[in-house]
């Protein structure tokens, strides 16, 4: 019985390792091919690269090539992701807090309106959204298409339903006494929120930010409509679609760009693994 168990355990271990390696194989393919020249990548796509230094030559080429402008895409992606994360979280927490604390019909109606946003697929609103942004430009003179602020504004709108929902659920569990005590100490309502409530919300801030970071960093369809492919402001997925979709495949450069797009998010994952997994799983179950 003992030895039989030992064999089963060893077998399980071997099966797990095999599937683990199969799962990571595409990453291996990306890494070895990001360090190849355009000829080498086609003739020997599964061999190790002859010269690892080719990786740096490739990175330098995408980074400086005027048709790809990868450096400015990295900047745009970082800027859009960071500002969207902060604004979605803070604005949604503010909204959720007043919605929980006010026990009137209007608060319930507005909360349900936010929830309805969770079931509306993006495809239903995308064409009219672009049309509306154009109308706003023509009538009010506020340019939202092809601009950072338009992109971030759209992310707040699309990110709010889930974030409001998650903050709402958490705030309900915070005892009111804490806020009442602060009120007696002479705090104003906004002070109570920013000094007393916000620090308690920290774990939900982390969860909401993780979900949004992965979504926004990788998002393609929404930025392709708001910013457009090949225009002035390009996020990383737009830049990759732009140069990978347009001409004859330069696989060496595509693989390098893919590696550079995936690297920050994988490094981030390795650093904060537990929190990311916990955050993403709890986000799904809600």
């Amino acid at each position, binding site marked *: 019985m003992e030895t039989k168990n030992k064999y089963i355990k060893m077998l399980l271990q071997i099966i797990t390792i095999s599937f683990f390696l199969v799962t990571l194989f595409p990453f291996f393919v990306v890494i070895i091919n990001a360090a190849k020249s355009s000829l080498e990548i086609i003739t020997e796509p599964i061999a190790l690269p002859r010269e690892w230094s080719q990786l740096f030559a490739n990175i330098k080429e995408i980074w400086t090539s005027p048709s790809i402008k990868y450096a400015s895409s990295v900047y745009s992606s970082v800027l859009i992701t960071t500002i969207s994360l902060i604004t979605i979280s803070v604005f949604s927490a503010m909204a959720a807090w007043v919605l929980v604390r006010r026990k009137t019909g209007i608060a319930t109606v507005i909360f349900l309106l936010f929830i309805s946003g969770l079931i*509306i697929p993006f495809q239903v609103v995308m064409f*009219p959204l672009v049309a509306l942004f154009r109308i706003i430009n023509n009538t009010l003179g506020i340019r939202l298409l092809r601009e950072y602020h338009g992109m971030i504004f759209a992310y707040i709108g699309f990110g709010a339903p889930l974030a409001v929902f998650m903050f709402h659920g958490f705030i309900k569990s915070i005892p009111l006494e804490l806020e009442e005590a602060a009120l007696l100490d002479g705090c104003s309502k906004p002070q109570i929120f920013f000094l007393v409530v916000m620090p308690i919300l920290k774990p939900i801030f982390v969860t909401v930010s993780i979900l949004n970071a992965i979504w926004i960093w990788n998002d393609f369809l929404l930025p392709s409509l708001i910013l457009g492919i090949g225009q002035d402001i390009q996020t990383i997925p737009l830049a990759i679609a732009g140069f990978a979709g347009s001409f004859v495949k330069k696989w060496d450069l595509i693989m390098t760009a893919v590696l550079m797009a995936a690297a920050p998010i994988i490094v981030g994952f390795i650093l904060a693994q537990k929190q990311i997994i916990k955050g993403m799983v709890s986000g799904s179950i809600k």
Partner: protein
Amino acid sequence: MNKRIKDNMVFWLFLAPALFSFLVVVIIPFFMGLYYSMTDWTAVAGLEPNWVGLRNYETMFSNLAFRYSFIRTFLFSMLSVISINLVALFFAFLVTREIRFRNFYRAGFFIPNLIGGLVLGYIWQFIFKEVVPAIGGLLGISYIENLLLLADPNLTLFGLILAFTWQYAGYIMMIYVAALLNVPQELLEASDIDGANFWQKLRNITIPMIAQAFTITSFLTLVNSFKQYDIIVALTAGGPTAIYQGQVVNSTELLAVHIYNIAFKYNRMAEGQARAIVFFLVLSVVSIAQVYYNKQKEIEM
């Protein structure tokens, strides 16, 4: 200032940024979309849309490309749900056994989920076009060496399912892992004493205990397969072409891609919008039905 007015001000000021952007970005476009779907709206600037009633809805189902796309989307979604859940459940079983480094493996299976659909699509395009034939050559198997997965309309859908399973199974696995860790050990030990074998334990204890997770994972995989866009754009761009009832169609132009193409490639915005609304309705009905069915099952178990 009066306290009530002040409280009201705080209420609306705190609500304003999130509510305003949500209304402008989601709610107003949603109702605009309902209206546009009943007009002859195009993207041509300066042209006012004219009211046409339900015409766009009536012509939709006689359109062969749309019907084909619909069938293919259902096929893709069904197969993806099965494939993702089987792989995820299998992985979840492996990484909840008493094996060394199981947290490490969990993280490894999860990592593909962090890669966006677009980037992932290009990775798999490269694998199907260059790596698979090279491996075939290395092994000396000419079938694999000459396998052009992305050029064969019968096979390309499976390429998509494979890429999507790679991306999503690790995430679904995590939900199963959380559920499996909640199965009380005493129950399994008690059944061991009663002499239950592996399959009996699986059938009578584990599966009923994780029934709730099934509801969530089926819902997530179904909705996300149905809405798939990014991977398709990067991996196949809707191709290759196939013949359906005597007409040329794009074999992987699933609904989300189809809707986009009708509107932007052919500039039939109103028709695209009408199809998007049907897409929304079908998705809602199917996902509600699925959750309802699974909830019933949960109770029976």
